[in-house]
């Protein structure tokens, strides 16, 4: 069993990737502008609702309840979607999901598909799998188009091209659009209006002729089999409405029990993500609808691929499973001081920022350098928890995962309970802790050590050698006191011996 593929090639650990990113001044400026703009707007949108805290508690409770009975709700969902004329497929991992989708597209005889932004399909590397099968997948969200044309990777959950400014986008459109279809208009300026118009013309050709679409979903309603997609541009509506075949790839954690439950998330998700009262377009569909697609209103075939790919492993961890409550609003990215400086690419996954730091190592396991480093990509300041509309205690999970990595312990991988060995990188830390325990358990040795240290204090280096060097790269080593507290106490407060 290979590691769970999360749509990213092998990556260096977070500190190395972040070190590169923080040197890129344009990137930092783009990120700072974007995160601060949306942060302030979001605070205003949330303040409009007097019951925000209650909506947050209700959203958390609905998600926890669903996860607690996930088997039951998935079966109910499957029955409802099937009854409405859809077909449900189950995919245990990325390979299986890619195989299912590739076969479904092949069966239509088509060689191209249009896609509405879907993190689940990025997670499993669907575009690459389709390309290998000779099928072209066109991203249609403007930001996703920028990423795809730029041979780039997404760096934000909601605004995947947040790291690009308008001049860079114009250059990408000019250089790449012709290779994928309709070329960019000439001349092309860098006004966002002009750039959006270029994308409109380029993609409209594809929408009008598309026979197959691939989507994700924000929510799936178990009770009714209803799928819900929130978006702004209309590319979602194009993909969900015009093609004959619609294939939705959705993580199993996206199910909610009842249609009524949407009243919570339709209030909290838009305000948390784009800071709007409501996003411009929301599409809901249930199978093929009452007419079974016979009246030309929507696809005539609907396939739902339910994706596990590490989610059940995450569910097995009592502390970590709360990450599955995530509704992908990206509010945690926009308030994170680490994300703001390091950018999304440093996280090495389609899920960047604080949520990515707890989700990716759980979905993929901590076998790689990047995944083992992600729980440390945080200052534990807690801002992500404060803004989370489903109250995921991200700092709690980060600390929990750090402990797992440093000490090892039981985890579930591909459904099997295994015991994780302590991570190699933490040998020095563990040795230091063992030495500390030895000293603290033997007061005589501790006293002797302290006196020796005090006498040699002028020889103490400003920076630590060896494994401790990284720590003193950004910190001063504390100076050693002339005498230990224990000696001072003994002299001041006790009878002289």
């Amino acid at each position, binding site marked *: 069993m290979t590691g769970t593929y999360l749509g990213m090639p092998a990556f260096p650990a977070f500190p190395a990737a972040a070190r590169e990113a923080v040197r890129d001044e344009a990137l930092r400026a783009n990120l700072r*502008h974007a995160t601060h*703009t949306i942060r302030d707007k979001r605070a205003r949108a949330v303040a409009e609702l*007097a*019951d925000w805290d*209650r*909506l947050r508690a*209700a959203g958390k409770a609905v998600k926890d*309840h669903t*996860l*607690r*009975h996930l*088997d039951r709700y*998935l079966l109910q969902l499957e029955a409802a979607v099937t009854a*409405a004329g859809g077909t449900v497929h189950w*995919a245990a991992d990325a390979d*299986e999901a890619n195989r299912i989708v590739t076969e479904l597209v092949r069966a239509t005889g088509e060689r191209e598909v249009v896609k509405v932004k879907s993190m689940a399909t990025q997670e499993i590397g669907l575009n690459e799998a389709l390309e290998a099968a000779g099928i072209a997948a066109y991203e*249609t969200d403007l*930001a996703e188009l920028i990423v795809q044309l730029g041979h780039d990777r997404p760096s934000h959950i909601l*605004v995947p091209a947040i790291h690009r*400014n*308008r001049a860079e986008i114009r250059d990408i459109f000019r250089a790449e659009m012709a290779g994928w279809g309709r070329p960019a208009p000439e001349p092309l300026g860098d006004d*966002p209006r002009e*750039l*959006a118009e270029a*994308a*409109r013309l380029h993609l409209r050709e594809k929408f*009008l002729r598309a026979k197959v679409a691939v989507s994700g979903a924000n929510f799936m309603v178990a009770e*009714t089999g*209803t799928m819900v997609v929130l978006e*702004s*541009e*209309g590319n979602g*509506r*194009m993909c969900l*409405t015009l093609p004959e075949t619609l294939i939705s790839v959705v993580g*199993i954690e996206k199910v909610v029990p009842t249609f009524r439950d*949407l*009243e919570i998330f*339709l*209030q909290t998700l838009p305000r948390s993500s*784009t800071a709007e*009262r*409501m996003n*411009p*377009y*929301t*599409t*809901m569909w*249930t199978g093929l*609808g009452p007419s079974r697609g016979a009246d*030309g*209103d*929507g696809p005539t075939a609907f396939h739902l691929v*339910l994706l*596990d790919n590490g989610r*059940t492993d995450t*569910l*097995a961890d009592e502390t970590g*499973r709360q990450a599955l409550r995530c509704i992908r609003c990206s509010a945690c990215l926009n308030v994170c001081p680490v994300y703001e400086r390091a950018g999304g690419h440093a996280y090495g996954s389609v899920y960047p920022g604080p949520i990515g730091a707890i989700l990716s190592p759980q979905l993929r396991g901590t076998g790689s350098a990047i995944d083992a480093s992600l729980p440390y990509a945080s200052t534990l300041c807690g801002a992500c928890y404060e803004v989370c509309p489903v109250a995921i205690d991200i700092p709690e999970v980060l600390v929990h995962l750090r402990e797992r990595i440093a000490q090892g312990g039981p985890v579930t991988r591909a*459904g099997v309970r295994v015991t994780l060995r302590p991570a190699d990188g933490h040998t020095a830390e563990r040795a230091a802790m063992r030495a500390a325990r030895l000293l603290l358990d033997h007061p005589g040795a501790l006293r002797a050590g302290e006196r020796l240290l005090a006498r040699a204090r002028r020889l103490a280096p400003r920076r630590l050698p060896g494994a401790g060097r990284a720590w003193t790269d950004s910190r001063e080593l504390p100076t050693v006191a002339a005498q230990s507290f224990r000696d001072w106490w003994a002299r001041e407060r006790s009878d002289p011996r």
Partner: protein
Amino acid sequence: MSSKDRILGRIRRALDDAVPAAEIPRDYLPVHGARTPAERVDLLAAHLAEYRALVHRTQEEALPALLARLLEARGARSVLVPPGLPPHWLPAGGPTRVPDRAASTPYELDRVDSVVTGCALAVAETGTIVLDGGPGQGRRRITLIPDHHICVVRVPDQVVDSVPQVLPLLDPARPLTWISGPSATSDIELDRVEGVHGPRTLDVVLVGTQ
């Protein structure tokens, strides 16, 4: 073992030590504030306008004249008309009427200038109109492909205050489209630009009854 059984088995094993889930608190507000019907309509108009929909108010008798003016202002030569749209809404001798047909291709719809529809309901607190394919609304795609959408909302009958109020009134089996302002993107430096793939112009006509 099928993948379905494998996934369900993993879920059940993952949860065998899980504590029972707590009750779901529903103490959030069903509506944010008390409003008269008129205030509700005003709020809808304000919120629609804030997200760059063009809001117009009129009475039933004056509707055809207003629609004629809106179509003319756009230079519309053709207008899509869903089958259940009250025929007297549209002015006689206006742009060519194109009926909403299952057989129309997306390319044919792309050549139409404007579309006029009614709606199922509207939500004041969020500035949202909801289409459910009912009479006067037509297929989902006709309000998507043309660049200009005129949506007629009967006020105050079709307006509710809040999201919790609107959901019980909708049938999830129908295809539902919620529209809050025209198509927009903020993907370039978070500058909001209206009109990417959906209609660039959304005229919302609030029709009162006297």
